[in-house]
């Protein structure tokens, strides 16, 4: 039953561009997928492993620039995208591992400092715009990017779903719940934190890569803006931290609601969206997935109740 529905939905996504010619709608699904991947990245590190990171802008930015330069140098799109993920893992592990020595709020502050240093460094060392060369511009197609992004988005869902219920995922959850207790039962805390950081950086790098192959031109510091740290956090909390469903639900809510509000209410939209976010946090502290989970399964054995 589950496989049947999954196939049907995958088919619907595959056929979507054949029936909907307006690139705007493809663009919105692209953004939902991009934010979903980035939020999955934050969720692995923050939601599963309990490490509240504010440094995802650096992960995202490094992935974006690695992918962009690889693509412009002649790498095919999928290979360039992979380079984005790998580049992000390498740089993040090199710079980020020392921050893992910090705990709790200090870790969040440390990662925020890392993101700010990355932003300032790129602003000063790589000023200016990265334009797509004319030959790549000529072959630019939104549909191919749509398929790549949706494909990576679906793969990220499956990957995080599998990770959460794997031995590694359980170790991460135990670290989130109580580091000392996890250590006492023989879990190598530092190793699993590094693994979580690497997975998180890889996913964020992929999301950055998708940004880089989608936007024709952008200032090089744009993918390092701190909003790429705060947005996935916001999305994950809207959707439900620590769940597989949360980042997807949060991204849908974030992109579609914001777009709808912005187009229909003009400048009021910012206040309305802020109010909606506050209401969600106040009344559904486990996010929208917690609400759906309760409505769907009922009772205390639902997934988010177990978190």
């Amino acid at each position, binding site marked *: 039953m589950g496989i049947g529905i999954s196939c049907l939905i995958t088919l619907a996504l595959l056929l979507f561009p054949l029936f909907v010619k307006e690139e705007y709608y493809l663009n919105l699904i692209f953004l939902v997928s991009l934010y979903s991947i980035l939020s999955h990245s934050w969720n692995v590190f923050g939601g599963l492993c309990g490490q509240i990171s504010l440094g995802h802008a650096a992960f995202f930015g490094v992935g974006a620039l690695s992918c962009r330069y690889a693509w412009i140098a002649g790498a095919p799109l999928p290979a360039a995208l992979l380079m984005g993920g790998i580049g992000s893992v390498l740089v993040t592990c090199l710079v980020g591992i020392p921050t893992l020595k910090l705990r709790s709020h200090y870790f969040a502050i440390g990662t925020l400092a890392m993101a700010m240093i990355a932003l300032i460094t790129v602003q000063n060392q790589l000023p200016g715009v990265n334009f797509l060369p*004319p030959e790549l511009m000529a072959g630019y197609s939104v549909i191919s990017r749509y398929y790549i992004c949706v494909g990576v988005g679906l793969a990220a869902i499956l990957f995080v779903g599998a990770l959460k219920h794997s031995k590694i995922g359980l170790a991460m959850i135990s670290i989130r719940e109580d580091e000392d207790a996890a250590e006492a039962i023989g879990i190598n805390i530092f190793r699993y934190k590094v693994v979580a950081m690497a997975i998180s950086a890889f996913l964020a790098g992929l999301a950055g890569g998708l940004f880089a192959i989608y936007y024709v*031109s952008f200032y090089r510091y744009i993918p390092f803006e701190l909003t790429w740290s705060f947005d996935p956090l916001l999305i994950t909390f809207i959707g439900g931290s620590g769940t597989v469903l949360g980042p997807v639900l949060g991204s849908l809510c974030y992109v579609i609601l914001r777009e709808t509000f912005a187009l229909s209410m*003009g400048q009021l939209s910012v206040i309305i969206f802020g109010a909606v976010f506050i209401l969600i946090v106040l009344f559904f502290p486990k996010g929208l997935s917690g609400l759906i989970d309760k409505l769907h399964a009922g009772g205390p054995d639902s997934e988010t109740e177990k978190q």
Partner: protein
Amino acid sequence: MRNAIDVKGCFLLFLFACLCLTPCFAAGASPEFIPVGAVVPLTGRMAAGGKDVKAGYELAVHHINADGGIFVKELNKKLPLKLIILDDESDPVKTASRLEKLYSVDKVLVYLGGFSSELNVAGMSIAEKNKTPWLGVTIAVESALKRGFKYIFIPFGMSGAQTKAFFDLLDSIPKEQRPKKIANFELQADWGLECGEHVAKMAKERGYELMVEKYAAGTKDFSSMILAAKAAQAEALFSVPTPPQSIGLIKQMKELDYAPKVTLFVRGADFWTYWQALGADANYVMSDGNWDEKMPYPGNERLVKDYLAKFPEVKSIGMPVGPSYASVQILAKAIEKAGSLDREKIRNALVTTDMVTVKGPVKFRQDGPAEVIFGLRQWQNGKQQIVWPPDIATSKVLLAPPWSKR
């Protein structure tokens, strides 16, 4: 089992997104208006400038429609402009996404630009991809025009025009009073670096000594740069700081008793808020003169009168209002010249633009920035006076005395 339900839920959400986004509109029949779209920052950190841009567009469209609209030869009738403005919340990601909406859903024929280089760069590449003419102002980085873009038109004084006006003004000062040494406080961003190249080239060509002090985008403390310029006895200062930086610079220059005879802060000293923040200390500082209320060009008086009637509380009209208004004038003329609502024909008509707008004559070149007048304005007792070029100047440039003599 729970994992399977969770993953299934995610897929269902994707389906929901597909269904939500399915369009449900029909194609239009005979056109009743000319759709033009702009994505402008109306909220967020660039909202102040974005609102000026929006006001300029709206006023120009109002005037054109009040005069009967634009004659389209192909349809043998006059059509009004329909302006669709969306907010990008000062976020370039949203600029791109909403420009796609304007193109694919609202079917706009031409894009008008937003505010700031950061947002406009995101916008112009979408226009180029969609092969839709883009007319934008408040972008000063010329590198965008060196990419071979075919659909981008910028009727705005850019880095080359800004530095040229600065040197032309210096050259016009009597020799005995003319500064001999220039300090360039160079912002380490593309615009600052581009200006730096022009300043270095022109200083060499025109026989000025030059010293360069570099600063990063977020700098707040300029004391070491100011002391270096003071020690080098630089009598003219050029920079492109942000408004808070330009306020900080003047305060610190006063504290450190550095008073160059000529100071130009493009962008940083443009708005009324500059005078509000500094008061008389803002005197003698020059700012961007892409447009001014007092410019004598046809239509400018009507623009100013109607703007002030709409916003009576405004003490000084923001500089972006005029160039934005001029963009719509240029567009209207191009559509009339094209005689068609075909994007390609409008683009070809735009290339041949040679007209006088509210901000002066505008002529586009194939290989670089537009030929426009870049004026310089100077703060003189709470008012911005045009001090360059001489034929439209409302006052002579005043050389700044030492702080102790003000």
